[in-house]
């Protein structure tokens, strides 16, 4: 690892002589690399560091310093929110409040039954309706959710839907039509990154390969019909947090992105058709400087993979947009207000890393769905950093810092070698099959837990300076009436809709899926006929099969 190179003589001037005793024998970051006492020019020279090839100016290849020449002098990071709970009416009220506070982009948090393709009256949904997100089983629910919120008043609207990504995309297409909007006037941004569900997060429905092809149906459809939308946001966030660490997680994320692109190429699309529609969701919560380095160097790696591996020519293919979710180090349920500090530092990494779109976590998220106050503080955190402290006045203010660039160079090397291993296993699907990604995650999770128990990984108020007494944050309880209401609504809708049209459109979905054709057009017709998420997933389960739980650990 290049940044581990000792900078013995040149970089240790006599004025900075090491103190006789340091607090630790060795400082190690979450990526497992030793952090040196001091970084200086010798380390960068050892990496053959060159401004033009390693950094380039902002807005120029390889985009290390940012995808735009003016960055935040032109446009600040979009204030987005991930929100939703209970019924569509509840969430609609929350959305209006969020918009009033300055939120520009909404990502619908779906409850688990919706994410897993179960209607509210399915036995599997019992107890979970409206709990972790809002219950959206039909287009009717989405219409209510965005009542009085025209999609073109938002920077983007979308959802973290993954296994059901294309169904939710179809719903947003239909909602746009209902709102009388031309598709060019609004933007839908989806997560729809199903591959990472098999190794982290866990809302997969189908086996991985057909699920991946289903996700690419959304990408392919957007290329032709809505090329300014974001049909796939490839995520390192969940893989990192599950235990992989951000370096390995980024490598797996790029491997997943390649898997989607390769599928698109097999369908006759070009890399310049699809790459500009993609976005990354990156994450590093354990180490401030690793986070900034990760965002910057991932842009460089992406640019090279697109240009050198795929032969992309369009600069929009080379310059990847990145979103982030500021958490900071482990939020704790004890002394929850401390989390505001953690989240603020996390948010700062997003700004210093040059992200396009971000949101801040709420300080009580470790315990439950966020309270109104916590949500407001989260939005204000981003706004304060954006407007109050001079942080956004210049582009890539940390660019060229010895430590940061050394981290970037080391990380680039490490990410490339993990990506190579994944390639050797046949790409992302092969690496899941070989359990390489799962093993990396579970070993990392054990390593983090050990480090925590040895107090090498520290949480103030928890494993050091433990909290006196047990501060209890507010808890959010879901009203059981929500489940009854959503069950009543979907059952009434099934009685009132045009049953023949529903059957016909669902049959068309089945036929498309069976024939291996893109199911998006058929899905759009089916959701317009008010077919439910549960009905559509039942049909797709017939064709694609069902995911078998992994019982190893």
């Amino acid at each position, binding site marked *: 690892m290049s940044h581990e190179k000792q900078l013995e003589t040149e970089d240790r001037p006599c004025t900075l002589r090491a103190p006789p005793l340091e607090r630790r024998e060795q400082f190690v970051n979450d990526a497992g690399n030793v952090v040196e006492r001091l970084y200086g020019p010798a380390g960068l020279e050892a990496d053959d560091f060159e401004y033009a090839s390693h950094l380039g100016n902002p807005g120029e290849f390889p985009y290390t310093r940012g995808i735009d020449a003016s960055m935040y002098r032109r446009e600040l990071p979009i204030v987005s929110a991930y929100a939703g709970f209970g019924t569509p009416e509840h969430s609609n009220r929350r959305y209006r409040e969020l918009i009033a506070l300055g939120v520009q982009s909404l990502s619908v948090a779906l409850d*688990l*039954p919706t*994410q*897993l393709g*179960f209607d509210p009256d399915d036995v*599997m*949904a*019992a*107890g*979970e309706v409206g*709990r*972790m997100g809002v219950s959206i089983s039909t287009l009717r629910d989405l219409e209510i959710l965005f009542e009085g919120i025209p999609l073109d008043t938002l920077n983007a609207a979308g959802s973290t839907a993954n296994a059901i990504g294309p169904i939710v995309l179809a719903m947003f297409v239909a909602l746009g039509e209902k709102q009388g909007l031309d598709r060019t006037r609004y933007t839908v941004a989806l997560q729809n990154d199903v591959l990472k*569900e098999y190794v*982290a*997060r*866990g*809302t*997969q429905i189908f086996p991985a390969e057909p699920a991946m092809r289903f996700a690419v149906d959304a990408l392919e459809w957007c290329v032709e019909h809505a090329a300014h939308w974001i049909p796939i946001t490839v995520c390192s966030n969940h893989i990192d*947090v*599950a*235990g992989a660490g951000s370096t390995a997680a980024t490598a797996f994320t790029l491997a997943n992105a390649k898997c989607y692109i390769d599928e698109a190429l097999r369908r006759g699309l070009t890399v310049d058709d699809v790459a500009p529609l993609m976005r990354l969701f990156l994450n590093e919560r354990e180490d401030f400087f690793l986070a900034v380095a990760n965002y910057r160097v991932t842009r460089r790696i992406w640019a090279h993979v697109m240009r050198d591996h795929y032969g992309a020519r369009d600069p929009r293919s080379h310059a990847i947009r990145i979103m982030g979710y500021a958490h900071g180090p482990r939020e*704790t*349920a004890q002394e929850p207000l401390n989390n505001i500090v953690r989240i603020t530092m996390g948010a700062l990494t997003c700004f210093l890393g040059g992200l396009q779109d971000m949101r801040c976590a709420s300080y009580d998220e*470790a*315990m*439950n769905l966020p309270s109104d106050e916590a949500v407001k503080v989260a939005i204000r955190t981003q706004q304060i950093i954006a407007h109050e402290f001079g942080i956004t006045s210049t582009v890539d203010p940390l660019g060229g810092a010895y430590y940061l660039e050394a981290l970037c160079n080391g990380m680039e090397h490490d990410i490339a070698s993990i990506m190579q291993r994944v390639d050797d296993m046949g790409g992302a699907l092969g690496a899941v099959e070989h359990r390489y990604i799962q093993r990396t*995650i*579970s070993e990392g*999770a*054990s390593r983090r*837990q050990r480090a925590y*128990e040895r107090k090498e990984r520290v*949480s103030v108020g*928890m*494993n050091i300076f433990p909290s006196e007494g*047990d501060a*209890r944050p507010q*808890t959010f309880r*879901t009203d059981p009436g929500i489940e009854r209401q959503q069950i009543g609504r979907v059952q009434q809708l099934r009685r009132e809709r045009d049953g023949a049209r529903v059957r016909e459109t669902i049959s068309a979905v089945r036929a498309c899926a069976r024939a291996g054709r893109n199911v998006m057009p058929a899905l759009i017709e089916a959701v317009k006929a008010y077919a439910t998420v549960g009905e559509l997933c039942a049909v797709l389960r017939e064709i694609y099969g069902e995911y*078998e*739980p*992994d*019982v*190893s*650990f």
Partner: protein
Amino acid sequence: MASTSRTFRSDAIAQPERRGRVLIAKVGLDGHDVGARLVARALLDAGMEVIYTGLRRTPEQIVRAAIEEDVDVIGVSILSGSHLAHLSKVRRLLEEQGASDIRLIAGGVIPQEDIPALRELGVSRVFVAGTPLSEIAEYVAGIVRAPAPTQPG
């Protein structure tokens, strides 16, 4: 269920005393199993026989697996907030099927204020986030060493 679950045996040298069998279970729809897997590994490392159910099991499936696998302890991990509903169902099914000697423990995101209610319905112990793995392993080992509780009435 039995066909989809595998028992992982520790490589530790076989000991004359009973090592204890534990079922680590994910109930309901929540897909976060980092903690469940960590606990499973820690118990395995502590010399126990451990079975993991995988994601998204029903209380019925969990109780069936626990009985078929003849476990001493079921450890249920839950992060979605549905702990009261799911754990009371697991407890009730264990009783109905004459397996109330199987001890039930729980972990995950569980508010302090719900712990008394969980204890009330027969959950022996609730481990909230941040508990050292060694503490969980010691507790489970203690349960296994202790003679099975005699059934009242």
